[in-house]
């Protein structure tokens, strides 16, 4: 079962909405630049990063349920944390829990911003608490993502699974 608007995910406008949500969150709250990436560029950016984190945010909008996932290198997560909190580089490094919390909040904001764009006018939504974990390996490029972007020249991949379907990027 889906809400009246979410089935329209499989359009170029819907894919652009995901990139737009990432850009809005990154620029407003993290003062970061976001550029869309093709698969090859993403692979280049990803190749130098070995430690990855993945956050998953379950959501419900009307009758539709799904999960939004964000994968990013730990290096990017730590840079975003510094931007978000205004941490002075001379201060001690944030704990792993703080980094996980930051990645969860980033994913939460991307999901909420995307749903606000996509949701029907009279439909609010609920987000469950994000689950963040260390990824065993870099994101699988065989799984088609909703968006691949470079955030300050570091890779970020967002996937959205709606029930048993996955949002594919425009042009695929």
């Amino acid at each position, binding site marked *: 079962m889906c809400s009246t608007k979410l089935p329209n995910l499989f359009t170029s406008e819907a894919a652009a909405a995901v990139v737009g949500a990432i850009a809005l969150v990154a620029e407003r*709250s993290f003062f970061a630049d976001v550029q869309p990436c093709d698969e090859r560029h993403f692979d280049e950016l990803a190749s130098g990063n070995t430690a990855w984190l993945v956050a998953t945010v379950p959501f419900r909008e009307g009758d539709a349920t799904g999960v939004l996932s964000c994968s990013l290198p730990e290096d990017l997560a730590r840079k975003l944390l510094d931007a978000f909190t205004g941490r002075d580089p001379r201060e001690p490094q944030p704990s792993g829990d703080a980094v996980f919390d930051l990645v969860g909040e980033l994913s939460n904001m991307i999901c909420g911003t995307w749903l606000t764009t996509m949701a029907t006018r009279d*439909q609010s939504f609920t987000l469950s608490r994000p689950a963040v974990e260390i990824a065993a390996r870099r994101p699988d490029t065989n799984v088609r993502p909703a968006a691949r972007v470079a955030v300050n020249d570091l890779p970020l991949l967002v996937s959205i699974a709606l029930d048993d379907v996955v949002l594919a990027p425009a042009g695929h």
Partner: protein
Amino acid sequence: MRILIVDDSSMMRALIKRVIKLTELTGTEVLEASNGAEALQILETQEVNLLLTDVNMPEMSGVELLREITRRDRWPKLVRVIISTDGSVSRREEAADLDVRCYLEKPFSPEVLRHVLNEAAESVHV
């Protein structure tokens, strides 16, 4: 003035605290809760002037918290602000029914939060 921040993200609470420090609000004390149930416990024991709450939180959501505050009718002067990723019209309308003074949508810039804080503080009667 005593401000209570209710958000399950410690990072978001840290950001809001940092912005509060940067505002021109003098003599403020900041309290924190990670969900609505914790916030209610604080409200029961300490006088709070300004409540800043997220919506989606475990145990008790921000909307459930605001409903409970309205139902108990013990804090009529408490100024209420929602800070949420949910910018839908229906959620905003729901907030308006719960006597919410401002609805700030995430993501926000620190400047916008400062503006909201200053505006909300003007409504506070200490």
